[in-house]
């Protein structure tokens, strides 16, 4: 049993060595972090948004459309 546990520890250290030869993932501060949350939107508003999205050239997702709206609002309030 003890021998098994020593072998397992040795094996784990070998595994750790191989894994640690890889680079680290960038920390949150290195990447453009996004937050994901649920947004409650009245149905009639989504219908309007979707109608506007359809008028646009190419495919504009709801997510992109809402992000654009947020940016417009920020710009408006800051000016």
């Amino acid at each position, binding site marked *: 049993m003890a021998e098994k546990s020593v072998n397992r520890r040795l094996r784990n250290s*070998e*595994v*750790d060595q*191989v*894994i*640690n*030869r*890889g*680079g*680290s*993932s*960038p920390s949150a501060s*290195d*990447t453009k972090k*996004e937050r*994901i949350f*649920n947004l409650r939107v009245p149905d009639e508003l989504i219908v309007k948004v979707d109608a506007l999205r359809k008028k646009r050239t190419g*495919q504009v*997702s*709801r*997510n992109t459309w809402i992000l654009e709206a947020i940016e417009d609002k920020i710009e408006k309030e800051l000016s």
Partner: protein
Amino acid sequence: MIIVCGGIKGGTGKTTIATNLAVLRAFKKDVLLVDADEQESATIFTSIRKSERPDLPQFTSVILRDEQVRRELDRLASRYDDVIIDTGGRDTRSQRAGLSIADMLLLPFNPRSLDIWTIENVETLLKDIWTINPNLKAVSLLNRADVQGADNADTIEILSSLEGIVFSNVSLVNRKAYGRAVAQGLTISELKQRDLKAEQEVLALFQYVFGTGME
């Protein structure tokens, strides 16, 4: 089965492949999609799918980093039929941790010389991983292939000649449908405007990976 969608070059289509396989497999099995890529695109895909299409089959998704990938999957993997790990386009601890416990590494390559030049580094990574996980099967496929042209054939020839990395004989062509589906949190066969060729390509990959069709 634990599958890593990996490689050491970004932009090869790993997330597209990981999410398409996760969704299709979720029609019949319990699937865990692990987002081990710092860009977290697989998590965004899952979030769109869950919020906009809750009526469709869903899978579980978690974000894991570095050694966490191995540690948490040691505990979690047995609760699911299949685990699919999406990694970033670099030789990271996250990817290595996934590979240390995986059954299969799926390596998408685009038919361009810059992608092919990374093969040597992939082989070096694999040699290291095989010392701790000798049963890992490495499989390549051609992704974002040209509709026609010599580049596909050249790349397939190189991929077929590698020792230790099996060429799956699956090619996914560069089609708009893939981008459209991912942006909506859908797999290719769930698109309203169907692309039958793309559907066939993804099904061929599914069949190769899981050894079974969707019937």
